[in-house]
């Protein structure tokens, strides 16, 4: 392979990106070396097993990916703003919508939520860490490496271009030659390992590590939503693992699962993809529901309305989310019986979600509401998400779906669900728990600007797409003629897209501004309205062991109960005992690096490299198995000093 086939060449946009990536890398290397930060980076971040730090790294990666996916989106919007535009060619446009979709779902939405879950859940249940801290580091690093592998496709070898759903035969060797599609398969495969491990880890954490007294029905709603999400992850992700592996066999080893030759069945890919894909929708929306529940309850100063109904609604979804997948391909032609059955199951699944909307409304009813930015995002969510939900029920009708299918109506629908549900919740949760992570709040005034600009932009961007879809504009077309009459609405949609981009920039500025100027918090209960245990820590940012003394829970919303009882969160000096904590480890980082080597080798079908990488992975597994990893004890003196307790 020649170097000009190895690197992507010929497009000025990509050269620009090459230069900016190069400059960023040089900048980071310079910063780390000049300020002598290498050791700090290794000790505090690359080898950490602390759930809070891993969570922060997840969120930072997700914000980075939000930027990348957002740039993709804006490039598409520029191309579509005017009819017959020459800004991007067809192939480039295909690549961009593919990477936009894949990155936003797999490398932005999920890690953002998993990051928040990492930071908050162990604190919320009063645990010192997760059940398997080492595994948690493996999860993060495999996710991160998977994301990096996927992202370098854009400068080395070429991006995938068969859509984030990668339907066969389009994604096969004949129609998608070259390494692009392999990047998709291997990047998702490696990141998927991390997600599955997260699922197992948090499932066990939530079941076994709760503070004494916190029965299942005293768990905060975010913890419940995380528990259900983890169940869905554990049972849905293996399906994706297999589907990706089968397509890899088709492309690399000449198997005939989904090919047109050898009696393969291309439709089976769609079937398997959505068997995972629909539960995936709930994986990215249930934690969002959990966070909104916490935020709405906190800022309404009221206990969550209909707690049990909400829990059962989610428990039902855990199983039911696996029974609706066919609605993603009603038009594939599996006949009226199959379509009718899945049409009905799909309409029914709207009910548990509908219940939740009323729960949130009644929680606010007669509450004393504080309109903080997390609360604003939650309110924005309710309004916008209902639009997504109602159009979803429209799409659920199989007969009508033949009209909506693969049009911009569908595109607008799932953006209303995923942005208003997942993205709003990520912003809301990030702002809400920001002081827990960094010890200061994000500036509220700037935050309100972000909210309004983003919200207006969001609606200006996607409302026109509903109309365009009903007018017949198909998704994934790179251009359209002036005669179609779609120009005006598309331009409007692009304006909305750029407003969202501006909102993102204001948010980025807010990170900087708040870092410089925000007042530092000196209590654990930063908003003063905290209800759950993560706010019951002694300092704004909890120490690595989280709680000096494990709290005992007597009621739902334990911190509210403690406030009622006038009980101080500060531990008594006689209760302090040494604490056992897990050791840091560099092995997960190296394991993921070997995965990268293996993945990269397989992408280019350099099998020697794939084998070297996999051997490396096995060596790290063996090293871990023989490691006694006994952890260490934090001494009483150290705890007393950290907690500022004097004898």
């Amino acid at each position, binding site marked *: 392979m020649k170097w000009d086939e190895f690197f992507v060449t010929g497009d000025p946009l990509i050269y620009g990106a090459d230069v900016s990536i190069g400059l960023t890398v040089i900048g980071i290397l310079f910063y780390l070396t000049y300020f002598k930060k290498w050791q700090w980076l290794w000790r505090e971040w690359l080898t950490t097993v602390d759930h809070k730090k891993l969570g922060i790294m997840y969120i930072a990666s997700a914000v980075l990916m939000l930027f990348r996916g957002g740039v993709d989106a804006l490039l598409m919007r520029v191309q579509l703003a005017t009819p017959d535009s020459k800004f991007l060619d067809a192939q480039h446009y295909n690549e961009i919508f593919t990477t936009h979709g894949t990155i936003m779902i797999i490398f932005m939405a999920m890690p953002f939520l998993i990051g928040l879950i990492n930071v908050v859940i162990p604190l919320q249940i009063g645990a010192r860490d997760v059940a398997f801290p080492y595994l948690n580091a493996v999860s993060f690093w495999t996710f991160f490496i998977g994301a990096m592998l996927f992202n370098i496709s854009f400068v080395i070898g070429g991006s995938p271009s068969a859509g984030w759903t990668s339907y066969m035969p389009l994604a096969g060797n004949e129609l998608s030659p070259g390494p692009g599609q392999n990047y998709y398969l291997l990047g998702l495969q490696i990141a998927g390992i991390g997600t599955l491990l997260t699922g197992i880890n948090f499932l066990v954490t939530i*079941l076994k590590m709760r503070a004494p007294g916190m029965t299942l029905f005293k768990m905060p709603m975010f913890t419940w939503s995380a528990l259900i999400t983890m*169940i869905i992850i554990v*049972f849905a992700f293996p*399906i994706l693992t297999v589907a990706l592996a089968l397509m890899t066999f088709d492309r690399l080893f000449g198997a005939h699962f989904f090919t047109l030759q050898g*009696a393969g*069945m291309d*439709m*089976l890919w769609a*079937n*398997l993809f959505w*068997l995972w894909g629909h539960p995936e929708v709930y994986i990215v929306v249930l934690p969002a529901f959990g966070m909104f529940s916490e935020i709405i309850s906190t800022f309404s100063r009221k206990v969550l309305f209909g707690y049990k109904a909400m829990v059962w609604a989610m428990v039902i979804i855990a*199983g039911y989310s*696996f*029974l609706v*997948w*066919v609605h993603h391909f009603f038009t*594939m*032609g*599996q*006949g*009226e*019986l*199959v379509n009718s059955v899945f049409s009905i199951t799909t309409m029914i699944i709207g009910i548990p979600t509908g219940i939740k909307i009323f729960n949130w409304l009644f929680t606010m009813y007669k509450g004393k509401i504080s309109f903080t930015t997390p609360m604003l995002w939650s309110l924005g969510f309710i309004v916008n998400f209902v639009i997504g939900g109602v159009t979803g029920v429209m799409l659920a009708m199989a007969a009508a779906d033949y009209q909506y299918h693969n049009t911009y109506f569908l595109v607008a629908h799932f953006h209303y669900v995923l942005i208003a549900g997942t993205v709003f919740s990520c912003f809301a949760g990030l702002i809400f728990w920001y002081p827990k992570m960094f010890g200061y709040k994000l500036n509220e005034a700037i935050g309100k600007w972000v909210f309004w600009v983003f919200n207006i932009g969001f609606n200006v961007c996607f409302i026109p797409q509903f109309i365009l879809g009903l007018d017949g504009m198909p998704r994934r077309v790179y251009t359209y003629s002036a005669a179609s009459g779609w120009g005006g609405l598309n331009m409007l949609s692009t304006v909305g897209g750029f407003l969202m981009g501006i909102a993102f920039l204001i948010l980025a500025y807010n990170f900087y501004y708040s870092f410089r100027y925000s007042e530092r918090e000196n209590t654990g209960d930063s908003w003063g309205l905290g209800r759950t245990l993560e706010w019951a820590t002694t300092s704004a940012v909890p120490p690595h062991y989280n709680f000096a003394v494990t709290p005992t829970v007597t009621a739902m919303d334990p911190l509210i109960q403690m406030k009622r009882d006038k009980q101080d969160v500060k531990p008594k000096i006689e209760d302090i005992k040494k604490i056992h904590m897990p050791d840091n480890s560099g092995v997960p980082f190296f394991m993921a690096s070997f995965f990268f080597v293996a993945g990269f080798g397989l992408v280019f079908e350099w099998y020697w490299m794939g084998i070297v990488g996999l051997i490396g992975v096995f060596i790290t597994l063996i090293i871990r198995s023989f490691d006694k990893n006994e952890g260490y004890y934090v001494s009483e003196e150290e705890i007393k000093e950290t907690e500022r307790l004097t004898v």
Partner: protein
Amino acid sequence: MANPQDSLSREHGGIPWKHVIGYILSIVLTALALWVTFETGFSTRTILIIIFIFAFLQAALQLLMFMHMTESSEKNNTLTGKTQTGNILFAAFIAIVIVAGSVWVMGAGHAKHDHHKMEMDHDMKMDGDMKMDHGDHK
């Protein structure tokens, strides 16, 4: 819910009867499945139903008699055993959805007619409305 303490005291010394019985039953079920498949002359559908029931029974044997599924790790707390059992039952539900669902969806409507020799379709009998669709051949 079995407690590890019970199973331990029951099996202290002596022959592990639970395992022996489990092993014998597994062999018997395997032999029965073979017999049903090759000797009975039942219809294809009946054979499939029976041998899959046997498979599930044998899986249950392994889980209960060899793998200590219902055992809890803590004294006087059956939560772990219940979680393990619930987990496997839910997995069985998902397994049935994935397998039966895929076979049903992929064998229905146009999907079953796509460009391949499908002369054995009639034996599948997975889908009642098959005969209706035969007019759609292109």
